[in-house]
């Protein structure tokens, strides 16, 4: 596979503590891939490894044919991968618009930046209404929109979303899910969707992986996994 992302048997640890063991995962161009698992399973660590925040001890990560295993985050962003991190991590003492501008930090073409910002505001009209407001004063749902919008500003070809539904009311979860689908379809961006909310993730994705204690336990199409006995018992509450 030349396009997309290929993770090949990576091990990741935090100091002496092992977090991922032999994780392999593929994302094809324009695909939505879900990564589900319970708290502490290693979802965030997988995304951190891709971004270069927590590089693997072993194994390789390739994106569009380039080895990105040891690249620092700015270089990964430059190649076309961005992350909307767990807990949103918006810059609280900056306005919504400044947060978006930071998302385009590596872009120099101001016309292009303005155009991208317009598209982000079209996906999230709430952000347009609040563009001058400090990000720290936004509601949780609005901060989530801002984190996703900021990640779109670099015009990525692969977007990593870490628990975008966390802490949101059910109706907001629906909304965000719908927007994720639109972004994937209209921008042609591949998406890795990390979720504890397996319900939403399995409905949105084409393929999914289940991660348990730092290793991939299952994989398949969203429909296959949703039908699997194990997944239903462990992640869908049925």
């Amino acid at each position, binding site marked *: 596979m030349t396009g997309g992302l290929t993770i090949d048997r990576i091990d990741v640890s935090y100091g002496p503590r092992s977090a991922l063991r032999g994780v392999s995962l593929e994302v094809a161009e324009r695909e939505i891939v879900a990564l589900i698992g319970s708290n502490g399973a290693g979802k965030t660590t997988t995304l951190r490894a891709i*971004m270069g*925040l927590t590089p693997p001890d072993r194994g390789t990560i390739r994106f569009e044919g380039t080895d990105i295993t040891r690249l*620092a*985050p*700015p270089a990964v*962003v*430059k190649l076309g991968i*961005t*992350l909307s*991190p767990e807990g949103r*991590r*918006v*810059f*609280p*003492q*900056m306005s919504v618009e*400044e947060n978006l*501008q*930071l*998302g385009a*930090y*590596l872009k120099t073409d101001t016309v292009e930046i303005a155009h991208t910002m317009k598209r982000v505001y079209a996906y999230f009209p709430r952000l347009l209404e609040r563009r001058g407001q400090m990000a720290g004063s936004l509601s949780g749902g609005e901060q989530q929109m801002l984190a996703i919008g*900021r990640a779109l500003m*670099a015009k990525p070809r692969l977007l990593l979303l870490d628990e975008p539904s966390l802490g949101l009311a059910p109706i907001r979860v629906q909304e965000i899910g719908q927007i994720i689908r639109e972004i994937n379809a209209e921008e042609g961006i591949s998406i890795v969707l990390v979720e504890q909310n397996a319900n939403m993730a399995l409905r949105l994705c084409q393929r999914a992986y289940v991660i348990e204690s730092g290793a991939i336990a299952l994989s398949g199409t969203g429909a296959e996994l949703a039908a699997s006995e194990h997944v239903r018992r462990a992640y869908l509450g049925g």
Partner: protein
Amino acid sequence: MDILALLPQAGLNGLVIGAMYALMAIGFSLVFGTMRIVNFAHGEFYMIGSFVAFFTYAQWEVPFALTILIAIAVVGVAGAAIEWVVVRPLRTDELSSMIATLGVSVVLQNGALMFFGASPRPMPDVVSGLVHLGPAIFSASRIFVIVAATVVIGAFWLFMQKSRTGRAMRAVAQDQEAALLQGVDVERIFPFAFAIGVVLAAVAGVLMAPVFSVSPFVGATPMLKAFIVVILGGLGSIPGAVLGGLLIGMIESFGATFLGGVTADMLQLGVVIAILLVRPAGLMGRKEA
């Protein structure tokens, strides 16, 4: 002389000292905010600024505007180099990096002592003459200090608010990892932030050189006061540093005029403690996450 005639002079002196404290505090705060490093050598860059002013302006008689530019260049390059060589290798450990800046302070102070000697050198004013404002008469050189400091603080404010690099520095101060994820090369921001921080101290030193005299030890008091101002104004807040600097400067000036220096110092600390009791995060500070 009656009290009414002293008031405007005390106010003007308060503004001069306050502007200097604000400059010092902003630079100190920038370094702490972005790098989480307490720069104990901050006052030494003020001292270097004073010496640059003394040699270039008083000795070699270059124009004062050029003196400021030379100080900015010299201290900016020195600051970036010190960050690179001394602070960077120790940055992962807060205590080591603080001890490192303490070491830099000792080296710079003793270096100045060795080369320039301990005796204070007086420096002539940059502008002379008097300015009449209504019934009050002010020395033009004091007004010049206030105007110059205001221009520098304003330029710095604009840089932080409007420029791409300024925005990146604020992002690093608020969430270093999130900044990295936007593509900000944090390792490149650090020497830059350190350099700008100490350049602000150097500018304070240049502007104040004619007001106080120049010696290897002139940095100590501004450093101490900057520390107090930063805590008073709120860590990392530029408006807080300006407000805190002016408040401390005014108390110092009015206190010294009407109560004497020792009482003024006590009054100053009393006010700081009272304000921190009411607002623990400082005048404009936000709670640390």
